[in-house]
């Protein structure tokens, strides 16, 4: 007899054992036996009278918890300069290799962030991101934080690689779009300490001279509130 047959024989013997199994539940009475075929509906009937837990997503959206790890955001200082300095510490910290950054030099004509360095390229690949938040911890300037936005699905791979413009925080009402010079007589440290709290006139003048159509200039700002503009 070959080996597989042995195995089958053993299995058949075991099955025979299993048939001799006795239930621990008590035997039903006569009424119980009569209703047995529809007893399962009892669970259903009971739940008719309980509160529902189903969320009506996407018709009705529920806010996530305050510290929910959602889509990232690249923040700005009060005057609109970017906080990101392109140091790549987030990319370094990322366990999923989801972040790609290229730094570059700020110049007099194009100052994007306080100090010498800014992030020219910033990409997060949401097909890779595991939302662990290590990048947030690594960020030395608080440029990178996470929002509560969780709707990160899409039909294409490319669409799920978010570029810098997709991640940058929306302009607040008093902000002026970069690039523009730093607030006069400040250094990057002043920004890091939070001493810069608003746009100054010389910055507005600078932008007005070079980009008169910039939508963040006071004269070009639409009257509707920022929330509505953001869509």
């Amino acid at each position, binding site marked *: 007899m070959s080996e597989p047959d042995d195995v089958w024989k053993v299995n058949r013997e075991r099955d025979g054992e299993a048939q001799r199994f006795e239930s621990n539940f008590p035997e039903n009475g006569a009424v119980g036996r009569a209703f047995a075929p529809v007893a399962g509906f009892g669970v259903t009937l009971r739940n008719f009278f309980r509160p529902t837990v189903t969320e009506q997503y996407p018709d009705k959206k529920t806010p996530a918890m305050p510290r929910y790890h959602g889509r990232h955001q690249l923040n700005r200082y009060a005057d609109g300069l970017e906080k990101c*300095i*392109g*140091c*790549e*510490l987030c*990319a*370094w910290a990322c366990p999923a290799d989801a972040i790609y950054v*290229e*730094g*570059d*030099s700020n110049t007099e004509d194009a100052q994007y962030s306080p*100090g*010498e*360095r800014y992030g020219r390229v910033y990409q997060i690949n949401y097909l890779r991101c595991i939302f662990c938040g290590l990048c947030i911890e690594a960020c*030395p*300037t608080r440029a990178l934080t996470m929002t509560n936005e969780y709707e990160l699905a899409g039909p294409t791979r490319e669409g799920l690689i978010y570029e810098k413009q997709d991640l940058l925080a929306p302009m607040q009402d008093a902000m002026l779009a970069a690039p523009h010079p730093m607030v006069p007589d400040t250094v990057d440290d002043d920004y890091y300490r939070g001493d810069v709290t608003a746009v100054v006139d010389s910055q507005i003048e600078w932008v007005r001279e070079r980009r008169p159509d910039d939508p963040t200039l006071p004269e070009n700002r639409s009257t509707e509130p920022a929330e509505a503009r953001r869509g």
Partner: protein
Amino acid sequence: MTSTADKATAETVDTVTLTIDGKETTVPKGTLIIRAAEQVGIDIPRFCDHPLLAPAGACRQCLVDVAAPDREGNVRAFPKPQASCTMQAMDGMIVNTQHTSDEAKNAQEGVMELLLINHPLDCPVCDKGGECPLQNQALSHGRSESRFIDVKRVFEKPLPLSSEILLDRERCVLCQRCTRFSKEIAGDAFIDLQNRGAMQQIGTFDEDVLGFDGYEPIGVAAEDESGRAFSSYYSGNTVQICPVGALTSAAYRFRSRPFDLVSSPGISEHDSSGAAIRTDHRRGTILRRLSDNDPVVNEEWITDKDRFAFSWQNLSDRLERPLVRGDDGELHEASWPDAIARAAEGLKAAAGLTGTPADKKAKGVGVLPGGRITMEDAYAYQKFARVALGTNDVDVRTRTASDEEQEFLGSTVAGSGMGVTFADLEKAPTVLLAGFEPEDEGGVVFLRLRKAYGTQRVLTVAPFLSRGAEKLDATLIQAVPGGEAAALASIKGAADAAESLQAEGSVIIVGERLAGSPGALSEALRLAKRTGARLAWIPRRAGERGAVEAGALPGLLPGGRDATAASARDAIAKAWGVDSLPESPGRNAAEIIAAAASGTLSGLVIGGVTPSDLTDDLAAALARTDFVVSLEVRRTDVARYADVVLPVAPPSEKPGTFVNWEGRLRGFATAIRTDAISDHRALDFLGRELGADLKVGTVADVNEQLALLGAAGKSERVKAPSVKAGKARKAAGDELVLASWHLLVDEGALQDGEPYLAGTGRTAVARLSPATAERIGVKDGVVTLTAGGRGTIELPVALTDMADGVVWVPAKSPGSWVAQELGVHPGALVRVKGGI
């Protein structure tokens, strides 16, 4: 012999035995404690210590506890921890590092805390972040807390020492690696420590550049003509050895992080030294190049050109697909098979291989591969010319060249294997340079000669002492270009120079420029014979020596065989499996271009040749030629006249071998994988289409053939040249003899697209002796040079102690493109007028 030599060294080297952290070790006498510790695997933190620089003890990070025997032999501890990078090991010494001694550990942590007091800790924006010895050692050997609560010292940053080198003084830990490198290795003592105490800082002695804030410099630096303070050709090495991020390069600033980069070893394509480099690239783009450690060639140093000139290959004019000239007269992109078919068809007609009556009209094809190719490419070009096109008209020497030089190369250089080496240069008691400027034309050759400064005598045959020669403390044997032969002949008998050349191990270095001076190479051979000195030929371009070995010269077959000798031709023909090789003597590069210009060539196959490097009017020659095939990395002026343009790979995108001037094979692998193919592969395709299987499709194929062919036998060799010494032209009236060579950093094609590097180059000046300047009548400090060529050159004058009747201008510096504008080689007469 080797074993006896080993025995001799083993006997002569005194050793000492010491104990480090309880481990007993025996090292040669004179070994520093820090090195002895390395040998037993004990790591001591350090910043200023560098194996190739003299000990300084500047950073104090390597403090260890030391006990040594006193005069009576009692082992007694030093009262304080000692710097292990300056103290030599002694017999019976007991060293306790931070691993076993709390005192050493405490001392090291204290030093680290002190170094970090003024360090800004701006690691997130610092280029060194991630590969920074300070960052690493602060984590591994420092305390986690600092007691410093005051305001840190602040400097203006960055401070440009040159357009390429930027200094962040606040990051500096004053280890002096950069200043020691500049003084000891490069000889350009342009940066140094300034001020004292808390205000001590690295700087150049140029007040305007530095912005001292009231702290005046003590002295003024010796300026070069550019007035720039830190214009060293080797300045990039200071960035690489800086143990913090104080020195950074403008080209790499803020570009990347080490974890982004893929590092590939390679060989520099910029000069004939074959310096080992490391190419760091990200997503197929080179971001920086570093020096690799190769003790036998470049040690740990490379020139700024090797380091920074790499963007040429990724400029917008990079060719990606073959181009074929259509019926409308314009170049159109084509597929490889189409382009190869079209090129083969045209070359067949031009070489007379169609088998139709039209063949009678065909006048043949010339091949100009240019001097920047690998040995494999050179081999493919010459085999393509000789087998597929049936001609000897192939020459890589798109520069000044002569038949005498070819004889010299065939008899002395080709197939001679490793001759004089870098180590021999360092040990040579006397070095004679002829037609060769080590700093400008040799790259790291200069550093090896400089390493022997003080123990070596350098003689140079030149019109004047260049700055490079001055830094070698060279003795000038003055020669007007064209008169080098006479100058070499004058080194005779018991004359001082001849005597010192007779010392064993002396070396005569001849450069490629000697080819333009009739009889000079013959005279150099005679001098070598007379004095017993060894001879080395150092060309400028990376591919020249390899091309000589591969036989890409009209009169040379692979391995230094004479193309005019029937036995050599038969041997090669047999090896290649062809009936015969072309017998008619080939034309050299200048003759090929002249023939094309006069309509006596029907076709040209042209490699990496830049028209502006040639004295001949290549554009006119190309326009006259019926069919031109160009193999190029970038779309150059040649493409305007080419019928088919085949894109080929730059050195970083292909494997290959450069043969450096020593004769050392410097093979390299592909650094960045792309679709680009090597010249030899493209020629393999072309050869097949022409009905000749060249078997040069891969590097392995070529190297197998070269290995089988080997070097020429005695009977197959070219005879050594014996040309009568020529005379220098006589300057008369406003006609002066032209002297010129390429500066290391200039406007060569491989330095395109790198403005920061270009900014460190030297401003072009015309050098005249004071007497000549007076005779010419220089007005407004400017002279104008004409030579009946295509243009003129106007340059400011620098009065120089040099031969009368000579004018020197750089060969391809901004505003001084000698070959293109004047159309003459050094040694010719040029008309020089004062003023514009």
